[in-house]
């Protein structure tokens, strides 16, 4: 696998796939920084709940950005063979299944780096909020951060499996990229209707489903209170089963594809 991975890395040299994830991180950071710097000293609503504010905010940002970023990354990784009709040659030299797995491992590594970096960004931004508002330190909710990392990585991985399969099957790449844009739209949509059942229908909606923070907003006073909610472990297990099924179906579709 390491040899195949090294070949894959050489193929995507100068395709700057990593830049997509880095740019997403940078934009999220700048967005949050901009929001923090606009907070006035009397923004009492955020005091003592800085972590919760950021965890909910980042779930929203992930639902907006990651479906498109993942679609673009999967397309960049798979497009290289499709463009030059190189799959025919490649599959005579290595097992077809290895082509699928190598790209998947590479995507998993990118997503691991992204999820880790984003989780590490949360305490950093909390420090910035505290410095800006001169508020007392808040105890780091390690369990919530770990669940944030786990859910971000799992949902992104499942999305990557679906997108990679679509990208490998699509000659034009239009369908996977539209799926990315549409998925982003629907993921955002599902977040605004927390009680509607359709948020469970699309994998993009699960960035919200696995968020361990909810919001209570009083329109009259414009007061915002964040409160922790239990992690839906049963739903998470079900989602992981869906991910495995997506992998099995995706692998089968790619293996059965006429090259």
């Amino acid at each position, binding site marked *: 696998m390491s040899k195949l991975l090294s070949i894959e890395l050489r193929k995507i040299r100068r395709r700057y796939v990593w830049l997509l994830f880095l740019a997403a991180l940078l*934009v999220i950071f*700048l967005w949050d920084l901009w929001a923090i710097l606009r907070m006035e000293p009397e923004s009492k609503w955020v005091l003592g709940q800085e972590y919760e504010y950021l965890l909910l905010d980042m779930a929203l940002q992930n639902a907006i950005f990651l479906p*498109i970023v993942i*679609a673009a990354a999967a397309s960049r990784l798979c497009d290289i063979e499709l463009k030059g009709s190189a799959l025919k040659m490649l599959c005579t030299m290595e097992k077809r299944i290895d082509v699928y797995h190598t790209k998947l491992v590479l995507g998993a590594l990118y997503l691991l780096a992204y999820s880790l970096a984003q989780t590490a960004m949360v305490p950093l931004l909390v420090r910035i909020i505290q410095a800006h508002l001169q508020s007392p330190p808040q105890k780091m909710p390690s369990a919530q951060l770990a669940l944030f990392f786990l859910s971000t990585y799992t949902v992104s991985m499942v999305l990557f499996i679906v997108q990679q399969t679509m990208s490998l099957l699509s000659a*034009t790449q*239009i369908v996977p990229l*539209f799926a990315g844009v549409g998925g982003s739209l629907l993921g955002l*949509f599902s977040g*605004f209707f927390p009680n509607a059942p359709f948020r469970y229908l699309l994998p993009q909606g699960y960035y919200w489903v696995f968020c361990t923070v909810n919001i209570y907003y009083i*329109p009259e006073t414009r007061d915002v209170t964040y409160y922790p909610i239990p992690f839906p472990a049963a739903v998470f297990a079900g989602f992981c089963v869906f991910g495995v099924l997506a992998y099995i179906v995706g692998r089968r579709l790619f293996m059965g594809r006429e090259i």
Partner: protein
Amino acid sequence: MLENCILCEKMKLRRSPMWIAFVLFPIVPAALGTGNYLNNIDLLKSEWLSLWTQETLFYSNFFFAPLIAVYCGYLWRIENRNRNRHLLMTMPVPVRDIFLGKLASIIKITLFTQIWVFVLFVLTGRMVSLSGMPPAMILLYAVRGTLGGLVVAALQLMLSMIIRSFATPIAIAVFGAVTGLLASNSRYGVCYPYSLMMVGMNANRSEDMLQGNPLPFFVSCIFWLALLCAVSVYYLKHTDVRA
């Protein structure tokens, strides 16, 4: 010759399923905005104007740019595959007309999408029992948004022409949309191409973002459109075709 180029582009896009996305996707922000409006009906008192801000917020902020980027990417992908760009550039057709032919396709789809967004807005307004018809001001916002959208479309068309990847210009559009949201909340909103649609459509503001002085907005739109077209034609004329 330009007319022939426009016809050729139309032929190239025949049986393309692109239109499905442009019909289906605007339904989502319309439904999202209507739901938001109904959820906050006690706070949103300006009726049609409030509904407009809710519906155009996500559409103009996050989704128009990536959507039009896919379309632009597709237009150039046809040329980038099978060495079609070599063929295209050796045709006895002015380079300017080749680019403007593609731009005409983008203008058409932008106009169609904006009209569809407005129709959805009126339909959802009637569904939530808003009385009468939307004020004329909102129609003006839609027209301004179309002009701002054309700048985004021209920029994406140029990026897809220069960057020979389908996915990268779409990712740039996503980041452009977010930075555009930030810029639209500052004094420099009318200077940044990705903000122009939001500023034009008056997304998420009850008062006019142009404060009754639309001249800088229109000047900026025309400036960007002219600049992007000029740079694109220059690039297409002077850069070697790579297969």
